[in-house]
């Protein structure tokens, strides 16, 4: 262990820079037409420095790095490392899976550029140490992903891309002002995230900053009612893109909450508000998800639900000044990174397989799906165990158990829909199947490896009481799913994206008239007499203002 710690101090800083740089280097090579093919083949290697850094930090000790010339600084602590490791694995697997997408398609070049930029941002958010670096990589993981979502160029993906971009940009704007408040609240002028968050509880802008942070990151993790973009985006994106977006990219919001909520300071009001928002989202996601037919859309609603649980855990941590909530939530999220990505790849694999190959694939998919519900011996069970301490045994614990039941029901619904889904006619390349299997395997194994790092006890995980605690909510969920199934799916059909439909309608109803009003105003003001009168008015107003302020 000490050897790893020493190695962490020795190589860590360099690896942090390399983690961010590697995808960008590959990107630079991709831009050269001659070397493009070779570079694309190398893209699965791009997340390796990040993975190495994560292993060093989990096994060894946290470390920092910086690029003074670019005024960027990095830090890898335990929550970040756990998420980074999971995200790096997903990016490796998905890059292999996506290699068929690199070439021979009209948008291959655009897809590759977006992919690598998103990768750099996705890995970068977990290691960014100061506000500006974080904002930069956060933008990187968010904005270029537009082209991953709108890749197909049909009406559906254009709409999904547009909605995604709108949410993303609004979220960025909200976060920008929150970050500015954080920076303004730090009297020393430091931009280090730790420093500004430590100063937050005493800052005059505390409440505004917290509200904006929760709003901004809440949009990223699709807390209801800001959830509408997620089902559209994941359904529209190609399989590997959906995998990395739902697995890795969305965790930028989670790490944001972990990093920026002052978990050490007890803020019950804000904490409980966030927790309730999270729980509402957790059930809302399931409820709407159960009405959906498309497996990818169902997975998206499951993400909404799971992100709600994570938000609830962090909210309770904030309310109770629970420092461990950070790494516990990170662990829960890391499990979701791996499982959700593997599930999306399952959708792709299942669609490509026919006949004899399909059944084993569906069994793996089922195991993955139930992992999210907390199936014993899976990473999901460990994840539930990890956050148990923060949730406690009271109301929150009961609600969490109910959410596990609901998740189980939703995942069974997903499984049935997946099993019934059509073949898309594309042959399944061995590359795809292998990368999927590898990721599925990793999603089972890696949580076990990381569990001790967050203070978990593996023996505890295998205790009978724990197993029973995990199983009974699942049974309830299974019963629920079976009941719904038996009734012939009586739920109303709600359009994917649910509330976003109303939001889009409101936008369509208000934006063009507003724009037309601006045009009329502009036309009036640009008439010569109007401009001349404006000039006189401004001159007089400025003079009068100065005169009056004597």
């Amino acid at each position, binding site marked *: 262990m000490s050897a790893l710690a020493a190695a962490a101090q020795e190589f860590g800083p360099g690896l942090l820079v390399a983690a961010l740089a590697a995808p960008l280097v590959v990107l630079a090579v991709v831009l050269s037409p001659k070397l493009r093919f070779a570079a694309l083949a190398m893209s699965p290697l791009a997340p390796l420095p990040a993975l190495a850094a994560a292993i060093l930090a989990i096994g060894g000790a946290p470390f920092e790095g910086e690029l003074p010339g670019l005024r960027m600084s990095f830090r890898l602590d335990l929550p970040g490392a756990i998420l980074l490791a999971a995200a790096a694995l997903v990016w490796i697997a998905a890059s292999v899976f996506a290699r068929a997408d690199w070439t021979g398609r009209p948008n291959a070049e655009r897809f590759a550029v977006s992919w690598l930029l998103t990768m750099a941002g996705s890995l970068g958010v977990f290691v960014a140490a100061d506000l500006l670096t974080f904002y930069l990589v956060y933008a990187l993981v968010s904005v270029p992903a537009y082209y991953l979502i709108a890749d197909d160029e049909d009406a559906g993906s254009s709409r999904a891309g547009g909605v995604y971009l709108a949410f993303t940009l609004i979220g960025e704007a909200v976060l920008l002002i929150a970050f500015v408040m954080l920076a303004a609240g730090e009297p020393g002028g430091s931009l280090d995230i730790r420093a500004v968050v430590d100063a937050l509880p005493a800052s005059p802008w505390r409440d505004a900053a917290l509200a904006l942070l929760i709003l901004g990151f809440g949009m990223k993790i699709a807390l209801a009612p800001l959830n509408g973009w997620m089902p559209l985006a994941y359904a529209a994106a190609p399989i590997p893109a959906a995998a990395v977006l739902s697995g890795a990219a969305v965790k930028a919001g989670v790490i944001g909450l972990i990093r920026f909520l002052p978990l050490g300071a007890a803020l019950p009001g804000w904490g409980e508000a966030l927790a309730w928002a999270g729980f509402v989202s957790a059930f809302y996601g399931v409820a709407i998800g159960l009405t959906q037919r498309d497996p990818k859309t169902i997975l998206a609603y499951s993400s909404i639900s799971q992100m709600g649980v994570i938000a609830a855990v962090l909210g309770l941590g904030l309310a109770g000044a629970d420092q461990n909530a950070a790494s516990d939530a990170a662990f829960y999220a890391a499990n979701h990174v791996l499982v959700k990505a593997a599930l999306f790849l399952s959708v792709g694999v299942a669609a490509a397989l026919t006949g004899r190959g399909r059944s084993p694939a569906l069994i793996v998919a089922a195991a993955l799906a139930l992992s999210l519900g907390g199936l014993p011996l899976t990473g999901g069970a460990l994840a539930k165990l990890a956050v148990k301490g923060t949730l406690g045994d009271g109301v929150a614990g009961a609600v969490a158990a109910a959410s596990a039941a609901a998740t189980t029901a939703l995942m069974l619904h997903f499984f049935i829909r997946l099993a019934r889904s059509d073949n898309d006619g594309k042959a399944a390349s061995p590359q795809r199947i292998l990368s999927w299997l590898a990721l599925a395997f990793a999603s089972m194994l890696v949580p076990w490896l990381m569990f001790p790092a967050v203070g978990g006890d593996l023996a505890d995980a295998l205790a009978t009481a724990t197993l029973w605690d995990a199983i009974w909510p699942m049974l309830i969920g299974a019963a629920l799913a079976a009941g719904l199934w038996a009734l012939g799916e009586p739920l109303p059909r709600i359009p994917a994206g649910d509330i976003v439909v109303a939001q889009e309608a409101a936008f369509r109803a208000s934006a063009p008239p507003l724009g037309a009003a601006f045009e009329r105003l502009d036309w009036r003001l640009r008439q010569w*007499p109007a401009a*001349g*009168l404006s000039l*006189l*008015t401004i*001159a*007089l107003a400025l*003079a009068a203002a100065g005169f009056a302020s004597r």
Partner: protein
Amino acid sequence: MSVLQALDVGLAFLVFAVAAWTVFAPGPFAATVGYVVYGLLLSLVWIRLFAVDVALTEAAIGSGVTGVLLIGAAARLRGAETTPAEEALTGLTRLFAAGLCLLVAAALAAVVLLLPDQGPTLAPQSMERLPETGLGNPVTAVLIAFRSFDTMLEKVVLVLGVVGVWSLAADRYWGGAPGEARAERPEPTLAFFAQVLAPIGILVGVHVFWVGADEPGGAFQGGAILAAMWMIVMMARLTEAPQASAFWLRLALIAGPAVFLAAGVAGAVVAGGFFAYPPGLAKPLILFIETFMTFTIAVTLPMLVAGPPRREPRR
């Protein structure tokens, strides 16, 4: 109230009335004629302000050359005189505009009245440093020595004005001469007038320039008179406007600022600073610069009035 004061008040009302005429006159042509009269009256105001240099400039350039320019334009714009209905202002807008303009004028008048009767001045400093320049007219000293940088740049503005006006030529006329082709037979009355007046005018112009060193007058005023003479000669069709591509014309147009600029740079070498004059040589140097400036003004103003080239160049 003394007679002089009464005359001042009368002049003020007259100026105001003619100005109002130029704004409210029914047609652009009438308004333009009003403007020329207004310019002449304004020269009288300047004389009453003991600013004879300005009065000369106002009469020559502000009223004279500008008047020719505007009257020519008004004549060519016949047909554009009617205002399309959609551009006419509503009564309310007019009222609002009038109110705002009144407010600005009132504020300005109030501030002007509040200025102290014996205001801050640079007259003593000008007189103190006047001997260095060897000049007798402090206004000329300000223009050519104390604030020579302004004056040089303003000459560059004139060059840019010519470039801008010429840039409006159609491509096929580039390098050609402005104005209509020369008539076969000059207008006899005008020709006679020009033949008589031009020599006298040139004499007067050179005189005004020359005395400018010590008395009211100078490069601007003299140059403007010379310019007027050339314009009259061109109007009488005794001579044609030169081709825009003519090297001598270009040289004449830039000679003033170029010599000024060169002298300014030379100052850095021989007199220890940009636009500094070597002691003792100041007056001859200033007269040298002014000579070229006068010449350039005399050429530039007619070219600005003549407008862009409108004839195909002769090769």
